[in-house]
């Protein structure tokens, strides 16, 4: 088993120096997601203005993979128009659920391509997706709130 294909240098860098950590105001929705098998947790807030992902802030405990993927999520999604952010989300999801067969697009996923190796470790896919699922959920709740 090739450890280095899992623990890419980029992943370890994000783990040691996570981007955008901390819970911030303002926000329209906050969610708390847990990985029940291992107990990793994330509390995540989204702030949307006029169709733009203005901020994503979070507090999380978990392994290197889950922490690094949250940091990459911030890099990739904050500042994007919502529909573009959702497209990136879909692309990351496809990569992670592809069992190592999906060729990642570096133009879309940037540092996120480092997670291609994680897809070959089924037990760790949930770690990488924890905050991405939380973001999707929080965004849906924020949009729900707008309509209400």
């Amino acid at each position, binding site marked *: 088993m090739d450890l280095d294909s899992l*623990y890419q240098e980029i992943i*370890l860098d994000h783990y040691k120096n996570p981007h955008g950590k901390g819970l911030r105001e303002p926000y329209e929705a906050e969610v708390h997601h847990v990985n029940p098998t291992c*107990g990793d947790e994330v509390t995540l807030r989204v702030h949307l203005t006029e169709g733009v992902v203005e901020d994503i802030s979070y507090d999380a405990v978990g392994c290197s993979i889950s922490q690094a993927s949250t940091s990459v999520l911030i890099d990739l999604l904050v500042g994007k128009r919502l529909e573009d952010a959702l497209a990136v989300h879909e692309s990351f999801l496809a990569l992670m659920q592809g069992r190592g067969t999906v060729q990642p697009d570096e133009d879309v996923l940037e540092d996120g391509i480092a997670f291609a190796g994680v897809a070959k470790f089924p037990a760790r896919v949930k770690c990488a997706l924890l905050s991405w699922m939380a973001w999707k959920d929080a965004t849906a709740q924020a949009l729900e709130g707008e309509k209400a």
Partner: protein
Amino acid sequence: MDGLLPELEVVRKDFPILTRTLAGGHPLVYLDSANTSQKPQVVVDTMVDHLERHNANIARAMHQLGAEATEAFEGARDEVASFIGAPSRDEVIFTRNASEALNLVANTLAWARGPLEIGEGDEVLITEMEHHSNIVPWQLLSERTGATLRWFGLTDDGHLDLSAVDDLVTERTKVVSFTWVSNMLGTINPVAELTRRAHEVGALVVVDASQAAPQLPIDLAAMPEEERPDFLAFTGHKAVGPTGIGVLWGRRAALEALPPFLGGGEMIETVRMERSTYAGIPHKFEAGTPPIVEAVGLGAALEYLGHLGMENVHRHERAITGYALEGLATVPGLRVLGPLDPAQRGGAIAFEIDGVHPHDVAQVLDSRGIAVRAGHHCAKPAHARYGVQSTTRASSYLYTTPAEIDALVDGLEYTRSYFGLKGS
């Protein structure tokens, strides 16, 4: 090293899986036995033989195979009874696992009317070191009956905090349920003392022996009655048996006083459309076709442990655990949760390493063929008590060698260097 099983290398040959190599040509170092144990050849062979030669439904088939299958199944019950020193074989009930055994007691107690009835003002007492399967059923019971759930807290060194015993065990206490050996902290709890206290106030005592039964000699009949629990639950697969089979032992009078658990075939005496009457124990609690070959496999497993001698297994476990605790103490930044004296604990050792998350520890160890568990080990409240989110857990068993512990310690050193942590 003193205390190891005699002829350990011969014993290891009984477990075919221990000769496996994993990715990268690494030999398997299996340190996840508190999760599930490996199976000796005799268990595998007994189950195959049963399926190949004796398979039939039990207690209902009027043919020769039916008689053989019934004999094998009931023979397994005898084996369980002798393994735990049950005062009577009829007090041994087969379940799917320990969780089902605990849920059986908690559910039927919630349904009980008369002397065992639980309601508002009554209290159910558990501990903060329980596995989720000995917490959630009692939460459900409390919600359903209006009883109050209370629990023993833990001391900093991983023991039950018994200083509150007078406040916690009172005439309001109806049930006290606790683990014999913690699956996370390893702590061995004072079963006799707690049971005596609970019985003084008339409470029923339920003991989760999932980690104890594989490691400690148990002789219920030899316990003075006031110190003998009323119920004892364990699972087969942690005691070199197959999955899908567990055991609930219960004191006859207590089992007879409880209402049935599941309704169905085999648990009845007679059925009319209006109502039914029920079979005596143990069948009253064994509705439907049970896991027959699994029970037969468990019988073979417990017979195997009996041949090794549970005193010897316990001594081995203690020697290996002591050696592991010494080895782990040499790893910089490593902190063991739970008692540090091998005489006070079982073989599951949960620990943290500064700067490396447990999943990452387990992943790096796995790349070297070393199987451990990472996470909360179904004991989230105990983790929360010590302010940790998750731990790595190495758990040995009767087949574990000192060389495997050395491999673990080396693997942990390597893990630290992999994540760029310098020596002490």
